[in-house]
């Protein structure tokens, strides 16, 4: 549904040029929720603005539902843009318009009749559960309500694609959850493809099917969300996952970490579980089987894309052969369990 081909965007200033988007290729299948995560300044804002041509890419192609945006005339582009909804971090509602009139705006711009506008806006108000606020002004709404108005407005022209630019970054955690589940619901109900950018793992975890990591204008990693949590490849992705799973650095252990095994040292291992392996008493079962002791240093459980994932950091007490067997055995679970040796400690 959304295809980005070799996309570049650079800004020319007096004495230097900044490359914000540096050769991005991306493919988002219809009906999916695709998340792009990155730190501030990574180029994600520019990237999402290139997708609906708010920013014209310096080179490369954006293909939306088979249409090459760069080849459209101005009026064709405006028509295509009407079918690409967008919501923003700061909602961007018009203060001079009521909730109803804000949602009606894209329909007015598209030249819909008064009757159609009435019908459509009222059904959208129901969808986002704001029928009782239709005559209020944005200044009378909470942040979450404002974003729901913005979502309704973005859906007014029945878009095929919804772009979310840090849509929950200005909201508190509870409101974030509510907005995310609304987006998920819209995705299910209307089968709209959603491309979102964020710096919050919470967003990726809750609603995305796929995720890509952007750094310095490049996609450095892309995978399904489960695989992202289970198997982050790059340092940046690992940082995102570890921080999100509340894994703390362990100074009292890490100073004594030694890369090589030596007699009398214990193995420090990070274990990641997906799905029903979380519920099984796997660790204690194996500990008994291989006759080693396990001390849990850190633990966290998260629900990722409706699957439960467990994150453990454990210290293994036992001789080298037994602990190696333990780890090798875990490796046989492949996609559902992952064990990484972090080092050795006293």
């Amino acid at each position, binding site marked *: 549904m959304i295809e980005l081909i070799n996309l570049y965007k650079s800004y020319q200033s007096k004495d230097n040029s900044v490359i914000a988007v540096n050769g991005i290729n991306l493919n988002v299948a219809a009906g999916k929720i695709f998340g792009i995560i990155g730190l501030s300044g990574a180029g994600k804002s520019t990237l999402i603005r290139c997708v609906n041509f*708010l920013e014209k890419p310096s080179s490369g192609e954006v293909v939306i539902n088979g249409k090459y945006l760069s080849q459209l005339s*101005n009026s064709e582009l405006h028509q295509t*843009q009407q079918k690409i909804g967008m919501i923003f971090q700061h909602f*961007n509602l018009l*203060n*001079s318009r009521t909730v109803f009139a804000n949602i009606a705006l894209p329909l007015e711009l*598209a030249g819909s009749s008064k009757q159609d506008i009435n019908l459509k806006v009222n059904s959208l108000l129901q969808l986002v559960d704001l029928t009782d606020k239709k005559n209020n002004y944005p200044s009378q709404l909470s942040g979450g309500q404002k974003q729901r108005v913005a979502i309704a407005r973005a859906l007014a*022209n029945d878009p095929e694609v919804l772009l979310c630019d840090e849509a929950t970054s200005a909201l508190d955690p509870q409101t974030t959850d509510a907005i995310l589940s609304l987006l998920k619901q819209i995705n299910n109900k209307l089968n709209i493809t959603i491309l979102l950018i964020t710096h919050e793992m919470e967003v990726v975890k809750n609603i995305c099917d796929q995720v890509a990591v952007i750094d310095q204008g490049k996609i450095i990693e892309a995978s399904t969300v489960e695989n992202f949590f289970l198997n982050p490849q790059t340092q940046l992705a690992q940082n995102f996952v570890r921080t999100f799973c509340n894994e703390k650095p362990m100074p009292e252990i890490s100073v004594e970490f030694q890369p090589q095994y030596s007699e009398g040292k214990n193995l420090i291992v990070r274990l990641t579980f997906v799905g029903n392996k979380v519920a099984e008493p796997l660790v204690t079962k194996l500990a008994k089987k291989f006759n080693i002791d396990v001390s849990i240093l850190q633990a966290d459980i998260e629900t990722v894309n409706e699957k439960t994932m467990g994150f453990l950091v454990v210290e293994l007490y036992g001789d080298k052969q037994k602990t190696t067997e333990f780890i090798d055995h875990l490796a046989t679970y492949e996609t559902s369990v992952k064990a990484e040796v972090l080092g050795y400690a006293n």
Partner: protein
Amino acid sequence: MPTNIWGLLLQAFAETVYMVFAAGIISFVIGIPIGILLCISDKNHIAPNPIVNQCLATVVNIGRSIPFIILMVAIIPVTRWITGTSIGTTAALVPLAVSAIPFVAKIAENAFKQVAHGLLETGKSMGASNWQLIFYILLPESRVALINGLTLTLVTLVSFSAMAGAIGGGGLGDLAIRYGYQRFNSFIMIITVVILVGLVQIIQLLGNKLSSIYNLGKHQ
């Protein structure tokens, strides 16, 4: 003399109101589009065009820097060419409008610039053309600032119109100078001042009222 003093005042008042509002309307009609052009041709706005922007900005700044009393005299040939005469109330409209246009343009530009860039971006994301951005977003979202600015323009025009009286423009200023100053008629002087103050108060009051109607959405 004292018998028709009220008639004189009434006529002068009508002339002042005519000058202020006619010049005001002319300057809005010409100044606001210039303000829109100034705003949107800025390099980070919706229709960047440095040449248009620079030229307009220069003209507007020159216009704003000429003192009214000098402008009024300097453009007498233009006034005569447009209205066929250089004295009288209608003739005074020309310098009044000419001096108010750059003022309005600047005020309008500032009002439009206060519209958050994100709103225009949102409009663009909906596929709005530049015309639509102006009429659906820029103008409605800046209307409170615009109304306040236009009120200020009318108030300024009241004082300018009194000055126009000095070169035969008619109105309350003319009356105050001819009777109040040159004939030492303190009564007329005081009455004209009171009427001018009252007129400014009424304009300001109406402007505030109008802007508060449109401001409903903002601070409640």
